[in-house]
């Protein structure tokens, strides 16, 4: 949920899987360095997993700046992570993420609903009752029908394109409903899987149980939209607000301004603090210029929160360390070995042992901008993750040449072998990691050629098992993050054999292990997150044993926090971004 890249990954997963991708968001980081900055800043990592400058003072203008415009501000169409975070200013959902720092943010709490839903014993029916006093920006009450209509808009993919389609896949897997714009029923509420017996009650009926259904209802795509205010494709230019702020002005790619929605009643909302009087966003095309203006204090924070560019990073860290936070993003960076190209497990182990994790981490940007060395494929914040599980000794940071050579002998190629590393040509950091891997593999005689492929063609090149085999890609360098913080989706598209697709594939290793696949089926049905976590742990162990992944880092980000910001904290639910709905400013 972070950059256009993130979106591509997610979109690829969707194309591919037509199932769910669940995410990670991370929270293992405990910011220890407590350097106090010079400018009255709260200190390095002061807002990572804890609240910096806690305050309930209202007023002022919160000033965002961004170098990337939203894909769409339409709640049903936005897919960028920052849009999901920002959307809480003007949309409400039945349930939403808790307003707490770090991992606690991934808990789902009621928002428009009075509770987190009543689930039937078979896990197929979810019933919600709406709170009293929840209203639109014109004062009219938000009804269950508005919620149903908003969700129905997802079905109109020809008009409302680009957003996540999990709800569509789960509620209507056969695609029977054609969307509200082609709906022939008089009230345009023809979707059978959602029932609205009265204005306060909404019932979801799932054909197949899904333990992550609530996560999907927490996405902005499940926000209410009122039928008489639906401007279809243009809705993103001025969404009709159900949250604490409403649109005042908006010029795409230039600026937007939100002001208080005086019809929003704080008593009905336990999540949104709504501290500033105004929220403004300025867009610029020059990311370096943006970083400099943030450092100069002209703006409060980067809307996109993709991290300070390397040009300004040193200045920020050396002169304004107190204004910098370094949270985990929930992304994992890794190399994966297609089994069609390197079928022998010992040869794959040789690559894993020979890799220099420390050098790979440096290539990713070092411990702060790059992230912590990863030793397995589950990011720390996901239930079932065990950051210490380290079957190949990668956390030591140095290559194990002895074991690598032993593995090569067992593989029958004691002098090494030739292979190809596939890497996206538009990601400089990934090319740097490829060069690092190439250097360390050379030390045990593995001669890896680097092949740069067009990063815009990912799904047709490395996403196609046939192309991978034809081109002889023994090693593919990629990154992964998913759409909401639970385990199955983070791993399933990567390692479930049923997710192997002829194009848009994400299971690059083509791992197809019956035991792994079976464990996913169990985990999917499990509604207790802790029990599901145990299953993911088992899956993760089996994935490590198969030696098809070489994880590099659990990614971290360096983000700027102005000294004006109050009530700041990073939220795992939003990939380590600040929880925008809680932010305030000193006047």
């Amino acid at each position, binding site marked *: 949920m972070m950059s256009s890249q993130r979106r591509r990954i997610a979109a690829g997963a969707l194309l591919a899987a037509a199932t769910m991708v669940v995410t990670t968001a991370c929270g293992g980081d405990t910011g220890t360095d407590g350097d106090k900055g010079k400018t009255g800043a709260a200190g390095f990592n002061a807002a990572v997993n804890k609240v910096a400058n806690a305050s309930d003072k209202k007023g002022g203008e919160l000033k965002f700046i961004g170098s990337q415009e939203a894909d769409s501000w339409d709640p049903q169409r936005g897919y960028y992570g920052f849009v999901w975070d920002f959307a809480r200013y003007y949309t409400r959902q039945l349930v939403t993420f808790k307003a707490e720092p770090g991992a606690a943010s991934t808990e789902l709490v009621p928002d428009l609903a009075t509770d987190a839903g009543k689930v039937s014993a078979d896990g197929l029916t979810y019933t919600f009752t709406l709170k009293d006093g929840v209203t639109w920006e014109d004062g009219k009450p938000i009804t269950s029908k508005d919620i149903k209509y908003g969700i129905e808009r997802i079905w109109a993919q020809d008009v409302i394109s680009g957003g996540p389609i999990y709800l569509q896949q789960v509620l209507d897997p056969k695609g029977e409903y054609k969307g509200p714009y082609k709906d022939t029923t008089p009230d345009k509420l023809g979707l059978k899987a959602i029932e609205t017996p009265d204005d306060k009650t909404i019932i979801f009926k799932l054909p197949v149980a899904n333990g992550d259904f609530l996560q999907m209802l927490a996405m902005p795509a499940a926000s209410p939209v009122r039928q008489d205010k639906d401007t279809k494709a243009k809705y993103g230019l001025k969404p009709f607000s159900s949250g604490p702020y409403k649109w005042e002005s908006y010029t795409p790619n230039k600026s937007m301004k939100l002001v208080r929605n005086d019809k929003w009643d704080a008593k009905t909302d336990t999540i949104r603090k709504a501290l500033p009087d105004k929220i403004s966003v300025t867009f610029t095309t020059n990311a370096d210029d943006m970083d400099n203006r943030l450092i100069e204090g002209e703006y409060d924070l980067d809307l996109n929160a993709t991290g300070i*560019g*390397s*040009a*300004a*990073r*040193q*200045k920020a*860290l050396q002169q304004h360390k107190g204004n910098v936070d370094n949270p985990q993003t929930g992304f994992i960076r890794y190399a994966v070995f297609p089994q069609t190209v390197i079928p022998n497990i010992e040869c794959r182990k040789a690559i894993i042992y020979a890799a220099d994790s*420390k*050098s790979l*981490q*440096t*290539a990713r*940007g*070092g*411990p*702060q*901008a790059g992230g912590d060395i990863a030793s397995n494929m589950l990011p720390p914040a996901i239930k079932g993750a065990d950051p210490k599980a380290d079957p190949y000794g990668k956390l030591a940071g140095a290559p194990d040449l002895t074991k690598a050579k032993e593995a090569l002998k067992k593989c029958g190629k004691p002098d090494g072998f030739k292979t*190809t590393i596939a890497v996206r*040509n*538009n990601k*400089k950091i990934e*090319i*740097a990691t*490829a*060069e*690092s891997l*190439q*250097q360390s593999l050379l030390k045990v005689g593995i001669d890896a*050629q*680097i*092949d*740069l*492929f*067009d990063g815009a*063609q990912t799904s047709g090149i490395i996403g196609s098992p046939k192309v991978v085999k034809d*081109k*002889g890609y023994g090693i593919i360098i990629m990154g992964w993050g998913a759409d909401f913080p639970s385990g199955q989706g983070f791993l399933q598209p990567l390692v479930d054999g049923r997710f192997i697709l002829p194009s848009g594939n994400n299971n690059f290793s083509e791992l197809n292990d019956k035991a792994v696949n079976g464990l996913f089926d169990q985990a999917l049905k499990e509604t207790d997150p802790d029990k599901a976590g145990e299953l993911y742990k088992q899956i993760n162990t089996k994935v490590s044993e198969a030696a098809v992944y070489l994880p590099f880092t659990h990614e971290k980000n360096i983000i700027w926090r102005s000294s004006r910001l109050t009530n700041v904290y990073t939220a795992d639910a939003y990939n380590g971004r600040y929880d925008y709905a809680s932010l305030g400013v000193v006047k």
Partner: protein
Amino acid sequence: MTAPLHETSAGESTATVDAAPDAPGTPDKSGTSAKAIEGRSPWKIAWTRLKRDKLALAGAFVVLFLVLVALFAPVIVGLLGHPPDEFHEDQIDPLFGTPIGSWGGVSSEFLFGVEPVNGRDVFSRIVYGARISLLVAFLAAVFAVVLGTVLGIVAGYFGGWIDAALSRVMDVMLAFPQLLFTIALVSVLPNELLGLDGSGVRIAALVVVIGFFGWPYVGRIVRGQTLSLRNREYVEAAQSLGAGRFYILRRELLPNLIAPITVYATLMIPTNILTEAALSFLGAGVKPPTASWGQMLSTAITTYEADPLFMVIPGLAIFITVLAFNLFGDGVRDALDPKGSR
């Protein structure tokens, strides 16, 4: 550059043209009068002029130096540097990925400093980068000149529909989006082709592409020259003596085209160097980890504020090389074609 020579040049050049029917190379048998001109072939005259052009000579020396550097890269790097692909992460601050030492890590051990992130020796990479730049530029120029001369002379001499067809082809080629084509081409190139692998395929592709898109420039000039030469008396004389077309092309026309072709080839090399750098910059050049100047520039962008030297050095390398070739090329042009305006 040759301003003081202009008057005499004009005179000499007339003499050269007058002597042309016998083609250069054949000893001039005419004069017993003016001593300074007597007995000198057009090439000797050109060489005399070139020697007087200080800037061109300076360019020539730099070019020669670069060629030697490229040829003896392994020796130079063996003496003064480290293997170009070797990582020296101990020279890098892991937090920022920038060199620990000041000035991009310049020291007696690393003459031009180290590359950010991986600590590769910038000196070694510059030296090896010269090989790629010069190799691609030279070969592409040769490719373009051969193709352009053959097709240009054919178009100019035979005329008619052949000329019309070839001229249209040249027009099309000149209008073709070369950069986009190349970027698209390299992304579909296989890793191994015709016995080449790795960067070999890419180098061959760069040579062919840059050369292929360069020939129409040569072709047009050669065609124009041929058009004006083919009706000269000496050609008609040869025809009336029964010389075949091929003989006329080879013995009567080609020798008189050598001068403009040489000039154009010399000026084409710096353009090719720039094209190669641009393609490498855009990721369509040689494969990593092979060092190339354009690629170094592109890598330097991310760290230009923290480590400006890493951007300056490959930039300077390209700048100096291109400038030297241009000065030399201008000198050659002035020497061979003194009537040319400047």
